[in-house]
């Protein structure tokens, strides 16, 4: 017996070469890359300082926290969840880090302690979602609000400083000519991109987000997986917090205002769907780069900051519209 596929399923009988980027995603990512190049070219022609190493470094350092947090957010969104608490975890980690160092705790131990605290926050996020069956939006929103309060309590509303010397390398150092924070991001990005594309445990995120029911019946412990995912997201936010604190030599509860929305915007511009099941690290990183360049361009053009959000909001709509359009066209083809 032979099962004849319909036109959409036509096959040569030979498996096609593996394509790590499936067609729609690949097109969206290519489009985003082109938009980035176009923006860079336009800015460079009008403002020759745009692509100087100095400006690139400024852009990178300003957005490295977002970029690192976007890695975790990508996995969270692929599983069909969302993590709003990162905007509070980042300053929380920065503050803890500062307090620990000021208390005389050695750098390495301080880092471990801070990341453990961040991981605990992620664990609580996932546990709330699992135990009470509340949507992660609510669980992580509650965490965001609570933790902001905790941050205020910890700092008494003022800034924690006085540890600049201990963190000189983390904050101002270079590795192979690259600022340490950027180097950390690059290593993490490559690692996560590779794992999420090729490693069976990380790949489960796509099963969980694509069809929770199916994932469960296929022997995946969805609840435990979500614990892993939210802990990863929180730890990455913790790393971002440590790097930011080191950079400024200070920690304040004011860090990370609206950061969660900027990160989610980047991830969605990068092709992830909030319904889960789609998204990639490369796309999200390009999303952060694009957003970072837009902000930087605004600064150079001297446009009022009030307009930034208007434009970013419109860009998000355009990106989602293009992504939906591509998907529908593919479905019809």
């Amino acid at each position, binding site marked *: 017996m032979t099962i004849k596929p319909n036109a959409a399923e036509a096959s040569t*009988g030979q498996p096609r070469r593996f394509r790590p980027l499936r067609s729609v995603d690949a097109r969206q990512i290519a489009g985003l890359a082109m938009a980035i190049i176009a923006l860079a070219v336009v800015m460079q022609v009008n403002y020759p300082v745009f692509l100087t190493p100095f400006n690139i470094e400024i852009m990178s350092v300003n957005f490295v926290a977002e970029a690192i947090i976007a890695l975790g957010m990508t996995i969270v969104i692929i599983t069909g969840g969302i993590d709003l608490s990162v905007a509070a975890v980042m300053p929380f980690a920065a503050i803890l880090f500062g307090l620990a160092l000021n208390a005389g705790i050695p750098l390495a131990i301080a880092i471990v302690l801070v990341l453990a605290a961040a991981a605990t926050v992620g664990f609580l996020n996932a546990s709330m979602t699992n135990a009470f069956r509340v949507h992660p939006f609510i669980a992580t929103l509650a965490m965001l609000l609570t933790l902001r309060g905790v941050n205020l309590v910890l700092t008494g509303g003022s800034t924690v400083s006085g540890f600049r010397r201990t963190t000189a390398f983390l904050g101002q150092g270079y590795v192979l000519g690259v600022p340490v924070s950027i180097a950390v991001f690059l290593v993490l990005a490559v690692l996560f991109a590779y794992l999420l594309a090729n490693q*069976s445990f990380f790949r489960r995120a796509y099963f969980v987000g694509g069809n929770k029911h199916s994932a469960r019946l296929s*022997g995946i412990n969805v609840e435990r997986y979500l614990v892993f995912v939210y802990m990863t997201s929180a730890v990455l936010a913790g790393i971002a917090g440590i790097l930011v604190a080191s950079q400024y030599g200070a920690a304040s509860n004011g860090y990370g205002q609206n950061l969660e929305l900027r990160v989610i915007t980047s991830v969605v511009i990068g092709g992830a769907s909030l319904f889960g099941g789609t998204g990639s690290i490369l796309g999200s990183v390009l999303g952060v780069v694009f957003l970072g360049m837009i902000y930087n361009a605004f600064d150079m053009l001297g446009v009022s900051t009030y307009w930034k959000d208007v434009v970013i909001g419109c860009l998000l709509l355009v990106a989602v519209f293009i992504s939906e359009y591509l998907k529908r066209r593919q479905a019809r083809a």
Partner: protein
Amino acid sequence: MTPLLRVEGISKTFVGNRVLDDVTFEVDGGEIHAVVGENGAGKSTLIKIIGSIYQADTGSLMLDGRAASFASPAEAMRSGIAIVHQELSLVPNLTVAQNIFIGNEPRGPLGIIDWRGLNRRASELLRRMGALVDPTVLVGELSVGTQQIIEIAKALALDAKVIILDEPTSSLSETEVDLLYGLLDDLRRKGLGIVFISHKLGEVFRLADRVSVLRDGRLVGTKRVSETTTAEVIHMMVGRHIADLYPGKSTRIGEVLLEVKDFSCPPYRRPVSFELRRGEILGFAGLVGAGRTELARALFGAAPHDGGTVMLEGRVLDVRSPRSAIEQGIAYLTEDRKTLGLFLDEPIHRNVVSASLKRFTSPNGVLRTGAIRAEAKSWVANLDIRPPNVDAEVINLSGGNQQKTLLAKWLCARPRILIVDEPTRGVDVGAKAHIHQELRDLTDQGIGIIVISSDLPEVLGLSDRVIVFHEGELAATLAGAEATQEKVMSYAAR
């Protein structure tokens, strides 16, 4: 010969409700064993216990002559018991190969997936099954029938010895059904044990070697298909004789009620014209994808139309949305009652009035709860909806009672024309006969009815006249004795 799989003395109670009572059931290698029974008879619970999705209260399971017990569905799967669920459980935005080896990918050190090996093994497996499907295509792009094949491939990838299918053909087109039958036949020849749950006795008799009948959680009996008849199996299922599944034909066909003229809507290539007379049940026959549902949705204003006129009792209608269709007397019972028809988490009474809220709203905009409950109560009594409790949430009702609730919702809207799409899909024999009789009673009261069904005997049994659709065209209109299964198929499957 030891059976491949045997469950003995299985009982299961849910919140004081005995769903399975001392059921013993077995399947041999190289056998297709059908399980039939009305909704709520315990079929799904039985297979969920076999697949360890539920744990039985008492009873034992033997696989290959050895006692076995599994703590989780994953464990049962690894031991060779695979379930193909009624609601397909594939991940749409992953490829065929990724779905087949979900959580079970060929991998190297550190769990790095071997993509080449994955695609190669998937394509080998599909080739052995005779399915020419590209393993790198996204599952969401495949037809439901092919997805069903992928589900089975998933089971085979785990080296399943027993494959359990829960109503695998309920949403397949005729050609897809044939493909599936061929595949199951192949697997039987290879010595696998296949358990097959179905509502369609036709396919049970065509495909299965043995049939087991469940009723009210008990096993009524197991018969060799070659030694029994449809009538006997139905009798075992319902515990009584159903004299006739279909009511009589109309005796008083009157004047034209609905006239559709040069009506065009996607995917129709040519405008469609037809009429429906008072007292008549008009059947829409055709294969899945012939465009019957699309036409119904366009008439109901749920899909756009490009032109043509619709006249009801001589008045030209202007239908632009479901809301305006309801106001002008047209109702459409969707084929997809769970997602499009009912509010599953709401009680019966809110569902019943959901298409006629205006009538139950007082002048100052407050819902008249008392009137709503009274209305719902009368429908529950009228249609024999069980449990007879208007506060019961619809999600807890059986398929047949959900369908009756959907019918009540639309009758409550007092339509002149009722279009019913797959009115008895996933509905047991008893409720089926009841719904059919109800439709006939409605035409006797002067309501015009259009029936869309992929169950050909149903269309023929119910309708006074049948229109056959074929790939977006009205292919033929057949009346009375002209409308035979062969004739309809000759137009539908040209």
